[in-house]
């Protein structure tokens, strides 16, 4: 069953999702509280997953939601909470300054116009380039044949007893994940080695003292 080339709803759906993605990403880079930025990132990631679905890539959309929208967002939220906790920062910020130009406090770097100009410049030049070279990218949208997940797994894992084309990259990527786990283990170890000596120095009420206090107290 081949999908129609330009169904009626496509432009509206596209512009909605695209607008959502771009608005979300703008919020990510402009929000002062990291939690707001993380939630905006979540919206952006889900919008992009929607765009993948429009591009007839359901597997990638699923991976996007499972990995990015769930795992990475949860990771960021946890780290925001943990950093707030560890660094003992108050969760509410100082009141915003009145002049727009005085962004130069700890949220934005002092040379923020450079970054803004770079981003806008890149956006403009890329858009110009892409629109100008429209002929390079033919308008054809090839309808996929067969199941999308099946095709991807064929490339990765192969079929009929022979591995897929990207089997080596798959193994190397699994090594990459192993390195990530090793890294997490190392970092827990190193923070513990920082914490442990400090814990020893703090005076602890011993069990006998506590019992004695309880007896004398009542």
């Amino acid at each position, binding site marked *: 069953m081949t999908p129609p080339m330009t169904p009626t709803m496509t432009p509206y759906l596209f512009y909605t999702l695209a607008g959502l993605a771009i608005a979300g990403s703008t919020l990510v880079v402009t929000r002062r509280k990291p939690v707001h930025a993380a939630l905006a990132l979540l919206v952006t990631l889900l919008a992009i997953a929607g765009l993948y679905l429009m591009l007839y890539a359901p597997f990638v959309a699923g991976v996007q939601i499972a990995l990015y929208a769930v795992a990475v967002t949860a990771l960021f939220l946890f780290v925001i909470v943990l950093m707030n906790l560890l660094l003992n920062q108050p969760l509410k910020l100082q009141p915003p300054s009145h002049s727009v130009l005085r962004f130069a406090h700890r949220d934005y770097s002092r040379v923020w116009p450079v970054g803004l100009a770079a981003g806008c410049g890149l956006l403009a030049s890329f858009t110009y380039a892409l629109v*100008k070279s429209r002929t390079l990218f033919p308008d054809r949208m090839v309808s996929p044949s067969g199941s999308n997940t099946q095709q991807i797994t064929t490339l990765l894992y192969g079929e009929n007893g022979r591995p897929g084309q990207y089997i080596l990259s798959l193994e190397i*990527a699994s090594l990459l994940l192993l390195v990530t786990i090793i890294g997490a283990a190392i970092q827990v170890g*190193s923070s513990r080695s920082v914490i442990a000596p400090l814990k020893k120095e703090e005076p602890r009420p011993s069990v006998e003292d506590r019992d004695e206090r309880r007896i004398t107290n009542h």
Partner: protein
Amino acid sequence: MTGLSPIDYRLMLPMVELTIFALGLLLIDLWIPPEWKWLNATGAFIGVLFSALCVWQIQAILPPRGQIGFYNSLLVDRFAIYFWYLFLAAAALTILGSSRYLDIENEHRGEYYALLLISVVGMMCMAAGIDIVLMFVGLELTLIPAYLLFGFRGRHGKEKENHARAREAVRKFVFHGLFSSAIFAYGLSLLYGFSGSTNLAHIVRALGAVNPRDPVVIIALLTTITGLLSKIAAVPLHRWAPAASETALTTISGYILSLGMAAAWVLFLRIVVFGMLPLRAVYAPVLTVVAIATLTLATVAALMQTNTKRLLAYSAIVHTGYILLSFSVIGSERIASPAFFDALKAMLIYLPVLTLMNLGAFLVIAALRQGAVLGDDLADLTGLFDRSPFVAVTMLIFLFSLAGIPPAAGYLGKYYIFRSLVESGHRSLAAAGVVFSLLGLLYYWKIAKPIFTRQPQPNPPLPVSLGMRSTLAITALATLVIGVYPRPLITLVSWVLGIAQATHVAGK
């Protein structure tokens, strides 16, 4: 397409060996008591030896055009074999020199060696990869252990004032690296868009059919090259190198700045020279400008440094600038012309020598640590000749090599680069290169001077462990031997390029 053949397994064997040893080290480390941690180093070294043995086995049966494996993702040609040997050798030297140093810094863990070995696996992927997916994943596999190793703080890293520096260094090294990897990935996605395939050979063909001045092509070029330039520490994306060298443990800085940069150069060569060959008229002028900027800025910065490790980092950046200069030749010459191959030959000669001398210099600084000297400040080097003549002489050899003074091997790379520049008519660039080399003598003198000054009261002698001594001896010896008798290396490089010549002529 049939399944994986025995050839494929044999091609994969070096990487598999390293992985097995890395995993083994992770497990064994749990059972080793602290005073026996040097077993980790021994195990890692043996692993590297086994891997080198497997590489030699591949080389023995290698067909002249190189062996393609794994469904066109791996191309183990002579170029790959050459660099595989280099990576393994440099890794072995790093492992040898790290054992006592890590003991002193209280960071002697099996994970260090495991991460090092896995990082080398990533480098091997990049060197032999012909599929951009494999190369990208290999790049990540090379860098992420580097970020983790960067987080080993050592004894002095846990102190108060070093934390603020560490945070800035993390921003400069880790985030900068992630940022440039992402930009590089964007460029790769555009390359895929042009060709519809992730295979570098198809990409070359597709790029040959496209107008080189097309805006989107320029964007693809821009993003890819920007990402790669950041990895080789070219200006203006060089900020990570001094930060990484200053705050990481010295052996790790040495590994990142010598081995890591060599691997980044290999990726650069594979993608930019082999992969984007039709576009070289467009990117060559850009790279030349970047080269001059790199040379200028890094020389000026190096002249102003008082921190030894940062100075060495800037000197590494300067050498990147020299290698980039030869891209002006590549851009202007026809493929398969002698000048083109001269430029490639110069780069291939430069890279191993550069790796060895950078690594050696950093290992000398690590050796200082064994005498309870931090080695950060130039003043820490004072009177080294009195404390340990051996270490001082090896450092002198490395400095000669870095500065390009015969008989140490450093002059070879510079000589070939300047010669190829002059022969293809870029005489002003060659002259500029010579000027920067002479300026380089100034900041290398800054390192050499404290070493050979005699102090009024002599410091205690520097006890250097056997591992470190053998590493320094091997590296210094190799530098001298290559410098005095360069014929084998040059023949080796011609052998490597001989195949590249046939490849290009055949229109691959």
